[in-house]
């Protein structure tokens, strides 16, 4: 018995060293450490003025925001359909109804004021290749008012799927959730409808690729391929992890990021809960079996040793 335990100990140690070398150690070498996300957006100027939602609504109309953005919640439909909008701007400008539900307020103000700077896309856009959304030259008070207005219309408690739709959907497909860059894939009555939808999707994706220089990946399995920590840190600041990427910093709050991750988990790792619950029972079964097998072995071997 003593010798058996010694052999087991040697095997456990050798396997442990090998495992440590090829998993935690090798991966720490291959994926250099980066600071974890804080969601403070400390490089941006804080918004110190108190805003007024009513004046914000006027400012939105006066400054022509609704020329490009829809605000369904306030009765402003999108001025163009997504495909035409993507042909014009590269990507469909977001509907602003729930933008404040997911985007940090400081980030929102800074983005309106200077989108390229807030999105960390200075390497992609310049005066010769301007960003589709122009910078805002109004006062800080105007900015505060607009943000206050957007906050007043935004849903306080959005679902994980809505958070995903507002934050990610205009660039990324999520096919395991039936979501495309054009929104949820509808049920088609016939092949003509299907073909029309697919043509629109192809056109939108082509425009997007032209705009970004690459096709943004489908996020269906990202929870398994990247894992929650990576997604969290990446969303907060894509440039920090993938330097030079076309993905803008989107300025999500920590809570909204968690919702997006939760949604990706529901889509890409739907059986997680079931897996973790069933595992306990299976392990328990084999623990009991091991005890019984040991007793049986002792019983049988009594005769021979």
């Amino acid at each position: 018995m003593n010798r058996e335990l010694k052999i087991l100990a040697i095997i456990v140690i050798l396997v442990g060293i090998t495992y440590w070398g090829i998993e935690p150690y090798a991966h720490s070498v291959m994926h250099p450490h980066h600071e974890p996300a804080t969601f403070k957006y400390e490089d941006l100027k804080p918004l110190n003025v108190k805003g007024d939602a009513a004046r914000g609504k006027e400012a939105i109309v006066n400054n022509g925001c609704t020329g490009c953005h829809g605000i369904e919640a306030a009765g402003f439909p999108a001025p163009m359909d997504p495909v035409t909008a993507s042909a014009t701007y590269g990507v469909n400008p977001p509907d602003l109804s729930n933008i404040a539900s997911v985007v940090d307020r400081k980030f929102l103000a800074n983005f309106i004021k200077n989108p390229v700077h807030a999105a960390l896309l200075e390497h992609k856009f310049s005066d010769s290749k301007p960003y589709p959304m122009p910078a805002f030259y109004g006062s800080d008070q105007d900015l505060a008012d607009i943000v206050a207005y957007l906050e007043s219309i935004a849903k306080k408690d959005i679902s994980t799927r809505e958070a995903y739709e507002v934050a990610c959907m205009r660039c990324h497909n999520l096919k395991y959730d039936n979501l495309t860059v054009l929104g949820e894939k509808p049920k088609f009555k016939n092949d003509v409808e299907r073909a029309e939808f697919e043509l629109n999707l192809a056109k939108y994706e082509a425009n997007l690729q032209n705009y970004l220089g690459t096709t943004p990946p489908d996020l269906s399995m990202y929870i398994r391929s990247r894992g929650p920590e990576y997604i969290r840190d990446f969303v907060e600041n894509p440039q920090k992890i993938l330097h030079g990427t076309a993905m803008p910093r989107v300025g999500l709050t920590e809570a909204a990021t968690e919702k997006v991750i939760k949604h990706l988990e529901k889509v890409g790792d739907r059986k997680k809960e079931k897996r973790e619950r069933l595992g306990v029972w299976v392990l328990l079964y084999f623990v009991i079996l091991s005890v019984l097998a040991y007793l049986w072995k002792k019983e049988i071997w009594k005769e021979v040793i």
Partner: protein
Amino acid sequence: MAHFTKANSIYEWLDQRLALTKLWKVLAAEYWIPKNINFLWAMGVVLMTMFTILVISGIFLLMYYKPDTKLAFDSVNYTIMQEVWFGWLWRHMHAVAASVVFLVIYIHMFTAIYYASYKRGRELIWISGMLLFVTFSAEAFSGYMLPWGQMSYWAAQVITNLFGGIPFIGDELVIWIRGNFYVSDPTLTRFFMLHVFLLPLIILMLIGLHFYTLRIPHVNNQDGEDIDFDAEAEKYKAGLKKEAKVIPFWPVFLSKDFFVVSVFMIFYFYLVFYHYDFAMDPINFDPANPMKTPPHIYPEWYFLWSYEVLRGFFFDVGPLSAMDMGLIAFGIANVIFFFLPWFDKNDEVAPAHRRGGFFIWFWLLVFDMIILTIWGKLPPTGFNAYIGYVAAVGFLALFAALPALTARRRGLLMLVIITTLLLFIVGYMVYAETMESGIIVALLFLLFYALFFLSPVVVKRVGGAK
């Protein structure tokens, strides 16, 4: 024709026709195993259990898997993992078993090396076992391609490309294997066929052969003792069970194996449910994309040691490029274990701790293979390249030294050691760029390979202590 009487039970009826009682005696109740064993002797049954799990889970996966580059990824990651009832469980079990089975194979294999169970009549057990190892490797490689993720694709690309290094026919061979000029739909479909039909069939036949080869020489024991199995079996059957040096396969041997398998299952299912990333690499959850090379391409952990032997040669030698040098060493590494019974020139069957120099050799081999495995995954940049070189040359050197070591030819052994150390030194100088890889390096390698190939042929066997 045999004489048949009326049977009184179904068993008797079958027994008359199939000799079940006799069959059971031959296969289990009177199949004799030495008593002097430890839990390492249970690895065969653990392997059989893992293989059974792989076959059964594989059958369930096969019902939903689609071997088509357009459908494969979604059929695995959506249909099987999310839609099918317990599909995720079968997939996790299959993937984790495929990885863990290699851990057990390596333990099984090194047990045989440690206790010298590969010689003196046991050569065919060893060779059929190595054939199983090679076939399992092909099975694992073809299976890894099926989910058609990023690493499926790029590993297939890199590994099939290696065949291009074979002189004269290399380029045509690669196209023949892939079924196309690059890894694509025909490649996936043919590897699917290999994975679910041809290779499992070969594995089943080899398992039969492996068991068959055990019958005459019998299983080895902890002390390498030469047991008279017939005499000991008579003792056991006469009721002297405590005195006999043997036990029957059923129920005595298997009762211990059941216990070991049960404990192993706790470990295995813990991995299946809570710790599977080592076997289901996250990067393979990205769909295959021929336009986007992953920053790090590496094989599964069980191939890392031979992969590092391939990568270890980082400089050109004479007319051979670094890649050629690597391919030669890689080719040798993949078949060298087959020849172990002929590299070991000592007839003594005893555990390594009673064989002096062989004990050191064994642990050096284990140490070297762990280093190769770890550095096989690390990026081969900077000093890692030199460590990989030392470990790869060291691996070949261990085999070059084995005939001299086991035949106690001190002079020859010193020559191998000195040549190896010189190769380490010139390798470092080339790495540090204080020396060009010129004629001296080429001559050293020539000497090294001459020692490697000639010693097992020239050195005479010596008889060991009985």
